[in-house]
């Protein structure tokens, strides 16, 4: 018998021997709509009381991001390139995913950084990315309450590696992509895509639990929020 069969057999026997549950298990109360078919109570909030992209929701997101020491830029749709330019700071080289909307990064200005498109023609190696100062991407969704931005590898966000190695990450968020609560965020995700959830720049609290921003991931997170036109 293979280990697999042996283990599954033992697990089946253990599940039977250990049932029914005692101690530490939640007593199920009532049978209202909060009880799903599997007997799991779901009384927590699953939707926000503010619509996505509303001013209140955006204010919470900005507060959370700044608390994480990210830098937030707000701009109108016509001014995205200018805001991204500011967010790029003194970066001299920038990588972008192949599907980033045209005009996000201004390449015409005399002092514009050099822009490399990942995958044109070849995907960049990690070593090549290590020589690039910044990356500009879009995002899938952002959650206000937790200050979290989710990337899902669509063409406007690119491969995971490009947002990992350059030291500065500029994320361009459209206001309507910002939802209030975490359950609303999870509901918008496609599980089988490679997902990266980002809440502020890389950080550690491993030394006496004092937080230090910037360890291995990008040390500098810049978020450009594009207000509706």
């Amino acid at each position, binding site marked *: 018998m293979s280990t697999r069969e*042996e*283990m599954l057999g033992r697990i089946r026997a253990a599940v039977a021997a250990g049932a029914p549950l005692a101690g*530490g298990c939640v007593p199920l109360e009532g049978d209202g709509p909060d009880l799903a078919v599997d*007997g799991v109570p779901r009384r927590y909030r699953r939707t926000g009381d503010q619509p996505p992209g509303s001013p209140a929701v955006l204010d919470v997101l900005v507060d959370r991001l700044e608390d994480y020491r990210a830098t937030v830029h707000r701009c109108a749709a016509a001014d995205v390139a200018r805001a991204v330019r500011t967010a790029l700071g003194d970066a001299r080289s920038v990588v972008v995913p192949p599907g980033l909307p045209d005009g996000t990064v201004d390449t015409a200005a005399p002092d514009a950084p050099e822009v490399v498109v990942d995958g044109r023609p070849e995907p960049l190696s990690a070593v090549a990315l290590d020589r690039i100062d910044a990356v500009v991407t879009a995002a899938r969704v952002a959650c206000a309450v937790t200050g979290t931005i989710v990337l899902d590898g669509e063409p406007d966000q690119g491969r995971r*590696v490009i947002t990992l190695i350059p030291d500065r990450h500029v994320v361009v968020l459209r206001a309507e992509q910002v939802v209030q609560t975490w359950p609303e965020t999870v509901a918008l995700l496609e*599980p089988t895509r490679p*997902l*990266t*959830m980002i809440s502020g720049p890389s950080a550690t609290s491993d*030394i006496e639990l004092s937080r230090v921003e910037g360890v291995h991931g990008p040390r500098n997170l810049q978020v450009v929020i594009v207000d509706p036109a």
Partner: protein
Amino acid sequence: MTTFLGVPTRRLAGPDDEDPLRGSRPFPAAAADAVRDPVLRRNLRRATTTIRAKREHVVSEVADWEDLRDTGSAVKADVMARLPELLEQLESAVTARGGVVHWAADAAEANAIVTDLIRRTGADEVIKVKSMATQEIGLNEHLAEQGIAAIETDLAELIVQLAGDKPSHILVPAIHRGRAEIRQIFLERMADVPPALTDEPRVLAMAAREHLRRKFLSAKVAVSGANFAIAETGTLAVVESEGNGRMCLTLPETLITVMGIEKLLPSFGDLEVFLQLLPRSSTGERMNPYTSLWTGVTPGDGPQEFHLVLLDNGRTNALADSLGRTALHCIRCSACLNVCPVYERAGGHAYGSVYPGPIGAVLTPQLTGLTGGHDVNATLPYASTLCGACFDACPVKIDIPSMLVELRGRAVDAGRGGVPDGWAAAMKAASWVMSGERRWSVAETASRAGRLVAGRRGRISRLPFPLSRWTRSRDLPAPPAETFRQWWARTRGDDDAGPDAGNPPIAGTPAPRPAADGGDRP
């Protein structure tokens, strides 16, 4: 309580290996040394105080926190009840997306599988994301014996690894080290350390960044654990802060994930609960900086070879126990460690297991099973004051205090028969005294003699043998001048049938307290 007959024996990687789940000394002996170490006491107090305050702050923001805990607990109970079908569902989802699933009954099997997978890539070095499962099986030590270097990339794990030390906390493995000690470790053990290293946490973290950067960019193989695995979709999740996890999960060609079988969640939507519970309970943040989720292999993005090793290693022992299986609900947040008065003073090493603190005290003896009365893990359920803080802090509502009491009861039952020790003899004598009214009355009166040896604080600190075994580590309050029965007779003297007869004190009216001496409990 049921007896589970399919108990597997846990095999270690080799006969001489230290068991990551069993220390060499009983908890009281190891803890006694720890509490005498002032540096350790200060480091632990500072760290646990900081993280407790952060956790309380971010938990108090969440209006539906208790509802989330209820759901978290119920989802985990559901997972345990349906574990076989969910594991098979996970296996087929991972396989369908290009991953390979391996089954490992114990540490030795898991270590052999991982070693073989690494060998086949030709690599002699792997980078690692912090993982409790691989610590539990002693993977790094096993790989070292096989000539494969495993490099820990989490800052705290790196500190522990460089120091040749052991982790002492689930989340912050170097919690027992202060910044000055960490600077010293880096200066002595890190090959490319900058000479001007100070003990500023920022400077130390930057030194680690430089040290590991080259490793990340050149690594061929990474080994990780998993915080969650979604049965429905085959998705795995790693929750982290530094970005070392993203590096390991993204850059190498081959990724090997070792995961305990209990880490499952039925559906992707369950993350809407667990990714709220975990970060706030764990680091005291609204959300941790980075969470990575991947499903099998994504062409053109990340590792193109993915192996998932499903580990039992004693988990079915706990699963077969109706009370004990709730210990498998644990999501390794470590909130119970941070609120535990015993952990705060004794530190993680005293528990002798990679799982310390309250959850470790219930999980460890169940994973290992107990080999007899002299098994050091039999002392773990006593590493608690039963104050209940761990239960309140647990995001999935594991009733750790009740489990501790149950495990203590079993330890006592296991010791019945044979020659009684001093403790058993004392309990037997107490039982005889307390079961006879006259005997008890005499004993009560006699106990008042204790007032003579009590100091002015009303405490008895030293008694002759065998009672010295009690007073060696705790004070005894002096007996009150008047016993309860005397007080009862004096205040309700006309009722000679005693407190059980006639009208009991009226409900809702607090009965006057007997003349107590008001001292603290020992």
